[in-house]
Every structure is written in structure tokens, then in C-alpha cells.
């Protein structure tokens, strides 16, 4: 029943454009592989050459989350090729691959699970059709395997390479038949990630590693007072250093904040860095030089009394005439934190006339080459068609590299220099300049009816607005949905609910930090649920499940976690366990944390049990790796100092005063993946939000001490 159309839907790809792909071979350790120079495209994602080489174009940048394997896996599974026999090519924001070339929001798999399988399946069908036509047999007697079509009755076969001409003349079916999951060879199996060998040999190329002929290096001094900008500078001393080529003023745009710094351009990075110390700069600090976090926090506490903007309302929390002993109120506080990908911000840019070429680690290739209103072209004055990107492996994203501030800045340096220039931020720059995860304060109220039912729940978030910090056109009179993420949508059945947002003025660049606002509001929300459980004298797991009478994903996850974590088995003396769950845009995860309380009043995090609900799973081993990493990151945000300001400046500078979790601090982690169909959910972020509340709840269980502020010190409780 396959139609053979004379019209070719498959574009020929010229050699010239393909030679520019940053090819990463999965068949060897080379980072530049033999690039496809000819061949036919089957959908924009698959390229087959007559010599049998197969390439898959991967539109989801690899930052450690595993898309280098998981995205091609979806295509390869249905196309019937193994990941070992293909070349995976990271894309660079090319127009023909659409504007979804970005990695964020744990969305790569959850938004593409079926679509990319269809890509592979439709390409497979045209190869089968082509083979059956050549043999003049019924297509139904043929099947595909390992890049070949096989005629079952006679065992004859053609490789895809041998069929490419014929297959390329066929129309790709729009609704191809997808495989039965029980026949999966790649999906759902713990597959090896093809980028790993490149990462054990030092051959993986990250943005910071890019070398372009004739390249210069730059280091930028930016105003240490957040909100300040350049007044004037004297570069005399810096320019005297041998190797220094130029010192230029350079603009950076981070969200809505436009600031000007001073870039030193030199023949080596080290020279640029040394010369930077010799700059004499006067800053215009706009009155922000007296700003400090302590006063700001006092302000936030004061704002807790404001009504704020409504988010979600169910029933009415007013006039319930609750008895005072049946109500509870608490204020929770969280700090700003830095993203700290281990690869500091960096970007190579070269301007030649009307054109700019960019080499960088970015989560958003489409934003760099796109023509949308918030895309890079708007900020640098080049036409989208004249912006060429070379995307690399990313040494950690966590949301930091959703922003293009460091790219705008590098282009602005390159505009003033004849040669390509690599701008590298120091760790101090990365720590001191933001953007940061916004702090959120949460006021919570709960109330029980006289017969002991939780009938009222309020969560008010008091915080600066993320959207206001990143979008010039954001309407401040509206609730910032990002700041109230998930709080109005938990599955708990509480008849009267009110969630709201009180905005606070701010001037500090803010960014989405892995799991966005859920990493702070879930702490408040799920710790307070625990407080209510204790007020009701109920086991925290029972209490939650009693609020979940109807079938829901949350209920399934908690029921599984109860068994998986052996919740009902008593722990030894001095130990405690706590539970928390969180459902939000990225997905759903629940955790039980076990702690020990030591005689010296310190707490040790012993173990974490995790149940994550995915609907479908691509690579279970990678999911585990992601969860293990999420817990390390969430632990750091819970117990290590955050980012604070004093005299208008960020008080932290590098890992010695803004420390990250190290190997000796990591608890055991056991992960159970729920993948029994249903809505496909994300992997990269959901592991974070439940951790801090589960930990704080465990500490309460072990010590009787209720923690309502992050960070908290595990050594002194």
C-alpha cells in the first residue's frame, strides 16, 4: 500500500555546507570525524550516503543530561540502526532544523518522544518500499535491521546505502507505524553514552577549548557593584604590558540589565588577565553601593503582610472560623544561588563585515541564529542570516547557558577587534556577576476542621520577579507565573486553597536555575505539609496519602516510595527519615531521606530513596546518573552558603567561599523509575525539588528541630 511519488521530498545536501558541521564520531575517539560530503536527507534529521554512512542530526545540545545519546536513540530505534553504526552531529541552529534547537525545562524527551520516533519510522518505511520495489516483492515480506532491508523469504538484503537513491525519491509517510515497545532494542535499555569516551580522553571539545587561527583572548572587568556601570577608564598601564593588543569598553545585556565593562584583549589569556588588574576604572554605581541582602530580607519579611496577586484559588480560605489550635502559620526563607557550571562562561566570536561567527557552549542554538524578537540578532545588530554558530559540548548548563549575555558581550568585543577573540570569564566573574536563582520567601497557612480534616491551605510567595528581570515587556501588575511554579497545582485534595505572589523590587540579574522556582517553593510547601502532619499527630506519609484519595500520578509515586524506601520499617535510635514530593512543569519525583543525628549535634545524610515518574524511559542508567547528580546539586543548595550582597557587591568569589558539595559529603542514592505509560515527563530537573524538604523533614524527625530557612548547617543543629 505504499505510494511511490515522483516528487522528491528529500533534499540533496551539498558538500560545502556539511563540511562545517562539528562532527563527533561515535565510531572512534576523534572529535572531528570524516564529515558527510554527499548524501540524502530523510527528514531534516537523517542523512544517508551511498557508501552506507548514516548521520543523525541532534538538535538538543549536550550539557551532561544525556541528549547526545537519548535523542538519536529515539530516531535510531525506529530507523533500525544501532547507535554504534551512526555518526551523531550536534546542530548549530540551522534554519532547516527549526527553532527547537535548545535544551531546557527537562523538555528534550518529554516533548519529542513520539515525534522523533516517527522521524525514524517514516525513513525506515521508504527504505523498505525502495527495496521491495527493486526485488518486485510485497513490502510486507521485508523488514529492516541494523541499517539493512531484508527480504524475509529469501534472506536477500540491501544496505540503506545501496537503497539511498531509490528511497530518496519516495514520499515520507506522515503517520508511519511505530514499533511495539516490546521489540525495542535501544529504548528503555541502559545504553552506553557515545560521548563518554570523548570525555575520558580529553578529546571532547567544549566552548572554552575552541581554537581558531589568529585568535586573541579577552578578559572583562565588570562593575563589582551590581546595577552599576562604566563611567570612565584609564588603560595606560594595561596597554604597556607586552602582548596586550587593545582595551575596549564593552556592553553586556543580561535579561533587562544593560551594563558596560572594560575588555582587555591580548595574545594570551593569561596576559589579558594580568593586564586587567592594571586597569583604572571609575564606575557609576547608581546608589546601589549601599545595598545589602540582610536589609533586603527584612523588607521581604515585611511584605509578607501584603495581599499580593492571586495565583490559584479553590473554595475560599476566608470565614472558615477555624479554631486557633487547629491552625498553623510559618514563614520559609531561601537564598539566591549561583549556577556554577564547571566550565566558566566563554565565547569565541569573529566579526567580518556584515557577518559574525560564534563558537560557544550554549543551551539555545536557536536563540543565537533565530529571527525571533528575543533572539541574539536583536541585540547585536547583525541579520539572523549573517550569524553563524558552531555549538560545542557544554561543560554544564543548569539554566545558566539559556542566557546569551556572555555571547552578546563577546560579539561586542569582536566588533572592535580585527581578529577572532575568545572571551573567558574567571570563576570570580561567574560567581560575582549573576544571574542568580532568585530567593523566595514563603508564607504558609493551614487549618483543620474540628473533625481533623485539612480544609484550608495558603501559600504566598514573596520574592523579586524572574520574568521582570528577563523580559522588558513583562507587565508587573500581573502575577509572575514562574515565581509561583507548582504551588497551586499539587495533587493534594484540600477544599480551600489560595496561592499568591507578592513582588519585591530588585535590581540583580536573575536566571532560571535547574528546576527553576520549584527548587525553593517546594522546600516551603512540602516542609509545611509536614508541619501540618505533626499538628494532626499523623505519620507524614499517611497524612499525604490521606490527602490523595483520587487516583493520581502523585499518589502512585508516593505509594511506590512507601514500599521502596521501607518507610514502615522503624529506623535505629538517633536516626530519622523524611518524605517530600513535587510535581511541576518538568515532571514528578518523590524522595525519602534518611539521616543520623550525632552526639556532637551534627547531622549526616545517610541515604536517599527516589521514585521518579517518567511515563516512558529512554535510558534508565542515564536517568539514575541524572538523579544522583540532582541530589548532589540540591544538597549543595540546601546546606552550602548561597549568594549574598553587601555594599552592593556579591560577597562570594570562588569555590572557597561559595563551596560546592564534594565526594565525601554524598549520601547513598537508590532510584526507582516508574515508566508504565501515561504522560511522558522530564528527567533533568524533577530530582531536585523534593530533596531539601525531605532532608529538613528527616532532620525534624531525628532531632525535633524544624528548619524553615535555607541554607542550614548540618554541622550545627
Amino acid at each position, binding site marked *: 500500500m505504499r505510494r511511490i511519488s515522483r516528487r522528491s521530498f528529500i533534499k540533496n545536501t551539498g558538500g560545502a555546507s556539511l563540511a562545517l558541521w562539528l562532527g563527533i564520531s561515535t565510531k572512534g575517539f576523534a572529535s572531528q570525524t570524516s564529515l558527510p560530503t554527499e548524501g540524502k536527507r530523510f527528514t531534516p534529521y537523517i542523512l544517508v550516503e551511498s557508501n552506507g554512512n548514516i548521520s543523525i542530526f541532534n538538535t538538543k545540545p549536550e550539557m551532561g543530561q544525556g541528549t547526545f545519546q537519548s535523542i538519536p536513540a529515539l530516531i535510531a530505534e525506529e530507523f533500525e540502526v544501532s547507535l554504534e553504526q551512526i555518526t551523531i552531529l550536534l546542530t548549530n541552529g540551522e534554519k532547516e532544523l527549526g527553532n527547537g534547537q535548545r535544551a531546557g525545562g527537562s523538555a528534550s524527551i518529554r516533548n519529542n518522544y513520539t515525534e522523533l520516533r516517527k522521524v525514524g519510522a517514516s525513513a525506515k518505511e521508504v527504505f523498505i518500499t525502495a527495496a521491495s520495489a527493486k526485488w518486485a516483492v510485497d513490502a510486507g515480506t521485508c523488514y529492516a535491521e541494523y541499517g539493512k532491508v531484508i527480504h524475509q523469504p529469501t534472506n536477500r538484503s540491501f544496505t540503506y546505502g545501496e537503497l539511498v537513491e531509490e528511497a530518496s525519491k519516495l514520499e515520507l509517510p506522515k503517520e508511519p507505524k511505530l514499533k511495539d515497545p516490546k521489540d525495542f532494542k535501544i529504548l528503555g535499555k541502559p545504553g*552506553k553514552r557515545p560521548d563518554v569516551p570523548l570525555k575520558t580522553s580529553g578529546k571532547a571539545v567544549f566552548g572554552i577549548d575552541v581554537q581558531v587561527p589568529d585568535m586573541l583572548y579577552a578578559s572583562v572587568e565588570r562593575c563589582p557593584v551590581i546595577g552599576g556601570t562604566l563611567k570612565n577608564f584609564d588603560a595606560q598601564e594595561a596597554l604597556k604590558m607586552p602582548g596586550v593588543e587593545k582595551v575596549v569598553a564593552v556592553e553586556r545585556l543580561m535579561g533587562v540589565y544593560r551594563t558596560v565593562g572594560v575588555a582587555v584583549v591580548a595574545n594570551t589569556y593569561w596576559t589579558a588577565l594580568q593586564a586587567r588588574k592594571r586597569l583604572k576604572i571609575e564606575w557609576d554605581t547608581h546608589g546601589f553601593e549601599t545595598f545589602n541582602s540582610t536589609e533586603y530580607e527584612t523588607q521581604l519579611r515585611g511584605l509578607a503582610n501584603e495581599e499580593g496577586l492571586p495565583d490559584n484559588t479553590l473554595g475560599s480560605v476566608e470565614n472558615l472560623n477555624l479554631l486557633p489550635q487547629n491552625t498553623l502559620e510559618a514563614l520559609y526563607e531561601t537564598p539566591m544561588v549561583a549556577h556554577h557550571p564547571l566550565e566558566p562562561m566563554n565565547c569565541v566570536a569573529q566579526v567580518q563585515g556584515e557577518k559574525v561567527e560564534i563558537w560557544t557552549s550554549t543551551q539555545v542554538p536557536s536563540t543565537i541564529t533565530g529571527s525571533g524578537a528575543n533572539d541574539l540578532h536583536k541585540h547585536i545588530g547583525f541579520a539572523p542570516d549573517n550569524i553563524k554558530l558552531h555549538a560545542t559540548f557544554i561543560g554544564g548548563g543548569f539554566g545558566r547557558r539559556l542566557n546569551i549575555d556572555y555571547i552578546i558581550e563577546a560579539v561586542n568585543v569582536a566588533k572592535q577587534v580585527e581578529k577572532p577573540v575568545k572571551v573567558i570569564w574567571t570563576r570570580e566573574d561567574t560567581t560575582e556577576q549573576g544571574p542568580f536563582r532568585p530567593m523566595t520567601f514563603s508564607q504558609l497557612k493551614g487549618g483543620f476542621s474540628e473533625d481533623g480534616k485539612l480544609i484550608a491551605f495558603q501559600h504566598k510567595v514573596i520574592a523579586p520577579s524572574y520574568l521582570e528581570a528577563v523580559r522588558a515587556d513583562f507587565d508587573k501588575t500581573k502575577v509572575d507565573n514562574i515565581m509561583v511554579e507548582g504551588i497551586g497545582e499539587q495533587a493534594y485534595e484540600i477544599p480551600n486553597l489560595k496561592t499568591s505572589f507578592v513582588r519585591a523590587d530588585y535590581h540583580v540579574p536573575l536566571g532560571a536555575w535547574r528546576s527553576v522556582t520549584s527548587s525553593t517553593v517546594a522546600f516551603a510547601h512540602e516542609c509545611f505539609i509536614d508541619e501540618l502532619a505533626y499538628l494532626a499527630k499523623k505519620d507524614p506519609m499517611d497524612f499525604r496519602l490521606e490527602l490523595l484519595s483520587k487516583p493520581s500520578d502523585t499518589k502512585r509515586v508516593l505509594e511506590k516510595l512507601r514500599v521502596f524506601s521501607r518507610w514502615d520499617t522503624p529506623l535505629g535510635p538517633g536516626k530519622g527519615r523524611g518524605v517530600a514530593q513535587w510535581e511541576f512543569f518538568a515532571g514528578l519525583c518523590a524522595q525519602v531521606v534518611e539521616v543520623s543525628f550525632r552526639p556532637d549535634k551534627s547531622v549526616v545524610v545517610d541515604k536517599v530513596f527516589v521514585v521518579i515518574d517518567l511515563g516512558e524511559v529512554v535510558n534508565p542508567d542515564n536517568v539514575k546518573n541524572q538523579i544522583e*547528580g540532582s541530589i548532589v546539586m540540591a544538597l549543595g543548595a540546601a546546606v552550602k552558603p548561597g549568594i549574598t550582597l553587601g555594599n552592593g557587591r556579591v560577597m562570594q568569589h570562588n569555590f572557597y567561599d561559595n563551596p560546592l558539595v564534594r565526594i565525601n559529603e554524598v549520601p547513598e542514592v537508590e532510584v526507582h523509575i516508574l515508566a508504565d505509560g501515561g504522560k511522558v515527563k522530564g528527567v533533568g530537573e524533577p530530582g531536585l525539588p523534593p530533596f531539601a524538604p525531605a532532608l529538613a523533614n528527616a532532620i525534624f524527625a531525628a532531632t525535633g528541630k524544624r528548619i524553615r530557612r535555607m541554607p542550614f548547617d548540618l554541622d550545627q543543629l
Partner: protein
Amino acid sequence: MPLLWAIRDVIGLTGTKYGCGVAQCGACVVHLNGEAVRSCVTKVSRAEGQKVVTIEGLSGNNDHPVQTAWQEIDVPQCGYCHSGQIMSAAVLLRENPNPSDEDIDAAMSGNICRCGTYLRIRKAIHLAAELQQKGKG
């Protein structure tokens, strides 16, 4: 100039990474006469005439027991820290062919992994110890 920038920018070997510049993260670890050093705080003059091995030179074919174990367990996420992790682990295993978890924590706590692959690093070092043992036996 620190050895790190000489290796990266002058010699052009970029497997050795910059993470902090102040001896805090271990991304820049190389072997100087067989010892693990943080190249970001090692003056290039200290390396003059000495033997420096970077991740690129650790093995002929990406097959040092530590590298093999790392691949076996799929340790890296972003991978940025792992040149340094592997160089530190290689020295640990030479000095202590059968390290306990505590030995591993002590030897590896100078290497930060922001992606949080620590549990796998520990597991892979135990596996590398086994592989090393077998290789000798």
C-alpha cells in the same frame, strides 16, 4: 604564566581544564613527574625540563584502567571535570592499588564535579582497581 595556560593556549592541548584558577576544583590536574598537581597554580617554570603528562598522554588508546572503568560505568555527565578526576584517580591507584571508600574520598575531595557524578566516580575507582589488578596478574 601558570602551567595550565601554557598547556592549553601555548601548546594547544585542551583536555586539561580551567575551573577555578585557585586550587579549589581539580579540573586542571596533570602529572608532574608522576605527581598530581593543579596546573592552575603551578608556575610553568617549575615544569621546565620536567616530565608533564596530561589527560591526552595518560594512555595510548584511552585505555588506562581508570579510563576503561569510567567508560564501563558511564561516569561523566557534562564531562568537564573528568580529565582532572581521571588524572587524580590514576595517581591514587598507583599509590594505593586497593583503596577503600574513605581512601577514595580523601584522595578525590579536591576534585569538584558540579554535575554530581561522585557516586559513580567512587564505583569506577573500585572497578579500576580490579582492572589494574587483573592487568598485572
